[in-house]
């Protein structure tokens, strides 16, 4: 592409006029134009692929942020919920979610009767099935937390079942309902009537971001709460583990270590570690942290340790590069006025390298945030229904992570989980974009010229 004239002695004289270029010139210009076209083509292909990817994810996943809800008045009768009649929490816990479920379906049925909505072709059991199986549990914990609610009547919004949710989002149709054990065309007709009456509607699904995962029967209740918390704990731990270790190692290697065979070996090893497949780190974590060190399985601590092993090389490489980019004249200047090596590094080199270190760290964290394979091996793919405790104990509690949640939802059978999975990808992407933008902003802000 870059033609260098090889015809030594008999080089053709350039054209006399600078207005006409001649054949040679036209050829060179054509090569340049072609090269630019290749570049633009490559960029448009990648942008196109990115657009397709984002479009599929968003068209599948954005509906996860909306949820079908049934709104009707519920009387929390104390006869059912507090049979002992003394308002004691211990007594009230004897009423299980089955009791609350009956209460809810009775209230629902009463509302339909009051509004005069026909329930033709829909049995009582099917009527109760319109309400999510998650709803009684939510109501129960609410009442147990606040017994003063007993014997009040309130308009309540409860989750509709996953199939109704799917019907509102176009996933469930009358054709599929005929072959579905959990829903019938008659129930869908009823759902239409409920919508007209304003009982059934969709709203923003804040529980998707806060609830824990839910079982296969209740896709409508599944949320990312535990996964987000687990990922946040891990990122915090990775930051705390990696930054001091990585920066200290880089400073030592760049500024203090003698240049000999050993440091060369260390350098080669660091570069190799950066290229080790992440699943290998997962096996290492399983063997060392769980089987040998006996750290609890599925805990953010173990996840963070494994992710730290993966992130450290990235951070060390980025930090060394930015330390190396500090002009030697600054070091000379500091040494020249009698600063010690350490003072030179900490007063002058590090502040100048800080933007680069920060960017490298955030990008390393971002890739750790999206890492899935090693977490599968240390058991973070488990179904976790309980939030981990606040730090520090929470670091030892079972948790899961965002990318793992994506994986586990994508492998479930109910199509409702596909929507959840795409929704989780959107959340993950939003976090990644936030981190990368932060990296760019910090770099712009702290970058100094000399």
């Amino acid at each position, binding site marked *: 592409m870059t033609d260098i004239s090889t015809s030594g002695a008999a080089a053709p004289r350039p054209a006399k006029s600078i207005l006409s270029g001649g054949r040679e010139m036209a050829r060179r210009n054509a090569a340049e134009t072609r090269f630019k076209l290749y570049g633009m083509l490559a960029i448009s292909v990648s942008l196109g692929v990115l657009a397709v990817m984002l479009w599929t994810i968003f068209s599948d996943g954005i509906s996860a942020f909306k949820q079908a809800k049934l709104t009707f008045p519920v009387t929390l009768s104390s006869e059912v919920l507090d049979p002992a009649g003394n308002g004691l929490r211990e007594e009230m816990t004897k009423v299980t979610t089955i009791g609350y479920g009956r209460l809810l379906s009775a209230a629902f049925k009463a509302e339909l009767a009051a509004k005069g909505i026909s329930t033709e072709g829909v049995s009582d059991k099917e009527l109760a099935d319109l309400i999510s199986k998650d709803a009684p549990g939510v109501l129960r914990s609410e009442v147990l937390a606040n017994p003063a609610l007993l014997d009040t009547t309130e308009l309540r919004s409860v989750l509709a079942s996953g199939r109704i949710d799917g019907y509102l989002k176009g996933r469930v149709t009358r054709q599929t309902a005929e072959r579905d054990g959990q829903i019938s065309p008659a129930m869908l007709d009823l759902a239409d009537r409920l919508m007209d009456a304003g009982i059934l509607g969709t709203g923003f699904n804040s529980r998707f971001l806060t609830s824990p995962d839910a079982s296969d029967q209740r896709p409508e209740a599944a949320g990312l709460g535990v996964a987000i918390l687990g990922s946040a704990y891990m990122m915090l731990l990775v930051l705390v583990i990696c930054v001091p270790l990585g920066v200290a190692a880089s400073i030592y290697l760049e500024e203090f270590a003698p240049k000999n065979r050993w440091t060369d070996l260390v350098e080669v090893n660091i570069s190799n570690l950066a290229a080790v497949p992440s699943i290998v780190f997962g096996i290492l974590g399983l063997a060392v942290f769980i089987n040998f060190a006996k750290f609890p399985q599925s805990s953010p601590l173990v996840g963070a340790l494994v992710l730290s092993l993966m992130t450290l090389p990235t951070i060390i490489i980025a930090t060394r590069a930015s330390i190396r980019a500090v002009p030697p*004249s*600054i070091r000379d*200047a500091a*040494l*020249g*006025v*009698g600063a010690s090596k350490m003072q030179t590094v900490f007063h002058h080199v590090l502040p100048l390298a800080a933007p680069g270190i920060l960017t490298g760290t955030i990008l390393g964290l971002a890739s750790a945030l999206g890492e899935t394979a090693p977490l599968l091996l240390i058991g973070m793919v488990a179904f976790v229904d309980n939030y981990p405790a606040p730090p520090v104990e929470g670091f030892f509690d079972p948790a899961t992570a965002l990318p793992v949640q994506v994986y586990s939802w994508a492998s479930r059978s109910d199509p409702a989980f596909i929507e959840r999975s795409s929704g989780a990808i959107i959340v993950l992407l939003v976090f990644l974009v936030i981190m990368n933008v932060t990296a760019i902003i910090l770099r712009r802000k702290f970058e100094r010229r*000399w």
Partner: protein
Amino acid sequence: MEDQKTMKDIHLEERVVSDHAPRITARGVNVHYGENHALKDVDVDILSGTVTAFIGPSGCGKSTFLRCLNRMNDTVANARVTGQILLDGEDIYDKRVDPVQLRAKVGMVFQKPNPFPKSIYDNVAYGPKIHGLTRNKAELDGIVESCLRKAALWNEVKDRLTAPGTGLSGGQQQRLCIARAIATSPEVLLMDEPCSALDPIATAQVEELIDELRASFSVVIVTHSMQQAARVSQKTAFFHLGHLVEYGETGQIFTNPRDPRTESYITGRIG
């Protein structure tokens, strides 16, 4: 020869021959960079209250020798220095010497102006701060002001001491670096081609400054410009291929060189 005559016109003849005591005494200094023997058996006396110029073609070892005088060569991984360099009678390569302390006594100004990317004030105050030369802010302010005055920079920057040092012009930056170097009150000031990155006006200012600094410090300057050496120095050392060829009064070196190589260099035949 034409050149030489012009130089003679610049008051070379009436230059006072200094009779000051030697501040730095170097005897049999050899420097190796790995296999490369960069400096061969150099003997030099740097006198107090004198500007000493090191001249010579590129790669002749003059900068190398300069960097031996405050042990900046320690930072070069494969550099090996042998021989003896005494500062006020003490061997600076003695095991007990901390190069950090030595560098506070032997300041250095570099070829390219290299102020810290900090404020003008912090640039000058950094040396005194890390060496604990002041007890309070007022004293530090005093040092900063007096050093900037000595570096002939005070009037230009007194209203913007908090502005970044890197925002100054090239000549101002170099004078800031000189102020920074003298802030630790060194005894010897080493300058490695301090004017090569400056324009003629800034060069003239720095040269004037060097002449004034002579009163308080002994100055060693490496320069490529023979005119500059002739203008600012009292003693001149000519280096060639790692050897110290000739060392003597500046006037004598430029008007009556003893060695044919010196004559070839100053008349422009080698180098």
